[in-house]
């Protein structure tokens, strides 16, 4: 009789210490949590936890500070880039990032994001594009896709009536002060790895004092898309990525 081989347990995956050990308030299948984790991992890998000041914004992610154990200040709707400017100017030695949804960043806060980017503020913006207003119950966002139904465009977004979705990673990349702008997704293992590389580069950009770093995440909102988590994740691949192509739109450090 051959004996069973002895199984040795090896820990390959753990919670980053900077993430609080508690369940989140996000809906099942929501990717805000995954994105928090990537940010948390990068903060730890770069040894930034102790010198970070985060700016949390309005939307489902306002409670970022319940999960990420760093110094944090809350911003009014859309104003996070202005507030982060104030933080970084007051404390240039701190590592500063803001976390914003698409309603927050591309609608009410469009002026603030454009100008902080254009000034080349040494900040990192984590932008979560789920093509809808999550917290307020699924209204149309500036990133809502043509034909996508929301509670305020029940017949589907129509270019003639509502304009087309705004592609922020491309728009931001066009500004002189920007050192890094990329769009990523977390719908597959491959994309997840890519996403983390992008956040790393954006962080490096700030650490090297190169200028403004921007990472747009395509993310799910199964609740307001009225989809199961699995279907929502499939929509990212089928509809969102074709409409919002992934890639690095600017990496100033690599260009020169």
């Amino acid at each position: 009789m051959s004996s069973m081989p002895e199984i040795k347990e090896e820990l390959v995956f753990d919670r980053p210490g900077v993430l609080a050990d508690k369940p989140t308030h996000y809906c099942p299948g929501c990717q805000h949590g995954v994105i928090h984790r990537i940010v948390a991992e990068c903060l730890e890998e770069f040894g930034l936890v102790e010198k970070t000041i985060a700016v949390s914004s309005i939307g489902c992610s306002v409670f970022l500070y319940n999960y990420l154990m760093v110094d944090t200040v809350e911003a009014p709707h859309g104003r996070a880039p202005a507030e982060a400017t104030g933080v970084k100017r007051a404390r240039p030695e701190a590592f500063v990032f803001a976390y914003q949804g698409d309603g927050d960043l591309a609608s009410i806060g469009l002026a603030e994001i454009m100008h902080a980017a254009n000034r080349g503020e040494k900040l990192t913006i984590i932008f979560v594009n789920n093509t809808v207003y999550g917290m307020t119950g699924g209204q149309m966002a500036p990133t809502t896709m043509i034909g996508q139904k929301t509670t305020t465009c029940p017949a589907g977004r129509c270019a003639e009536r509502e304009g087309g979705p705004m592609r922020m990673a491309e728009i931001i990349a066009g500004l002189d002060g920007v050192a890094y702008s990329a769009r990523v997704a977390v719908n597959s293992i491959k994309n997840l790895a890519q996403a983390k590389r992008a956040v790393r580069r954006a962080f490096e950009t700030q650490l090297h004092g190169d200028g403004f770093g921007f990472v747009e995440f395509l993310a799910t909102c199964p609740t307001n898309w009225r989809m199961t988590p699995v279907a929502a994740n499939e929509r990212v691949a089928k509809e969102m990525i074709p409409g919002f192509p992934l890639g690095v739109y600017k990496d100033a450090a690599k260009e020169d």
Partner: protein
Amino acid sequence: MSGKRIFIKGNEAIAHGALAAGCRCYFGYPITPQNDIPEMLSSAMPAAGGQFVQAESEVAAANMLLGAAACGVRAMTTSSSPGVSLMQEAISYMAGSELPGVIVNMNRGGPGLGDIGPSQGDYFQSVKGGGHGDYRTMVLAPATCQECYDLTFEAFELAYKYRNPVLLLGDAIVGQMKEPVVPREPLAVDPEEGGDWKLTGRGQRAPRLLKSLFLEDGALAGQNILLQRKYESMRDEVRVEDFETKDAELVVVAFGSIGRIAKSAVRTLRAEGLKVGLLRPITLYPFPDSVLRELAAAGKRFLTIEHNLGQMVDDVRLAVRGLADSAFYGVFPGNLPTPDEFLEPIRAAAKGA
């Protein structure tokens, strides 16, 4: 006191006062009649080792202030009426998050775009909260260039003492006139200031959070109770200029530039033998209710003069209610009154007419 007098505009005095008080972050957006402030600070602030940002709007300027304030760095923004309306969102958030900062309003004529002439039409907005929610900002009203300097300096001390936004309410008259100002010894700000709450990056301590959202059951009520207590405690800071009210039968109540112009009128009428005096509130919030009430209890009559169509007079009437009333004389926003314009209204009020 560092002694040597300087001959400067009220607006410049605000910039100098802020620098002397240790202000090291300035955020602003151009609007008449306060542009001398950002113009001066665009070079003076970096020279002092601080930061100057011309923001994309007053909305952004006030939120930059919020960010810098969260870091415990002395910071200021300045504007005029329409611009201050845009700042109200951030001011409400700062009050809710208990963040110290200085906001200067060199009041111009309104409502709407109004004009660029002097006015006190933003009294209500300044002292009643201005933005959304139950909150107060401390409000200081300078009447001279020296006061522009001194009150700006003190605004920073008060902002940190109470962890609250402090407003300086001036106008186009005091901002644009030039007078000798005696500067103070620049303050060496205690590096430990704000040490128990400011954001620095958490280091070895527990993370800190500055916010105005209180969703859990009863949490907001708790925060509001604390805030209201704080606003009550600000009453200790009441300041007035009292000019010959002791034997006066009529007390003129007027603030800022109008208070100063009214003082000239009161002086003229005193020379005529009329028993009149002036009470000039220097703190508009906290309002000097008890001072007014004492005067009312001593049997004085009141005339409130303002550069608007009747705002502070409500607070005067509330203060003296049950004992007296106040007559009102209003100068239309945008007009520039002379002391002579006030003589007849004061005479009439003194007669009890």
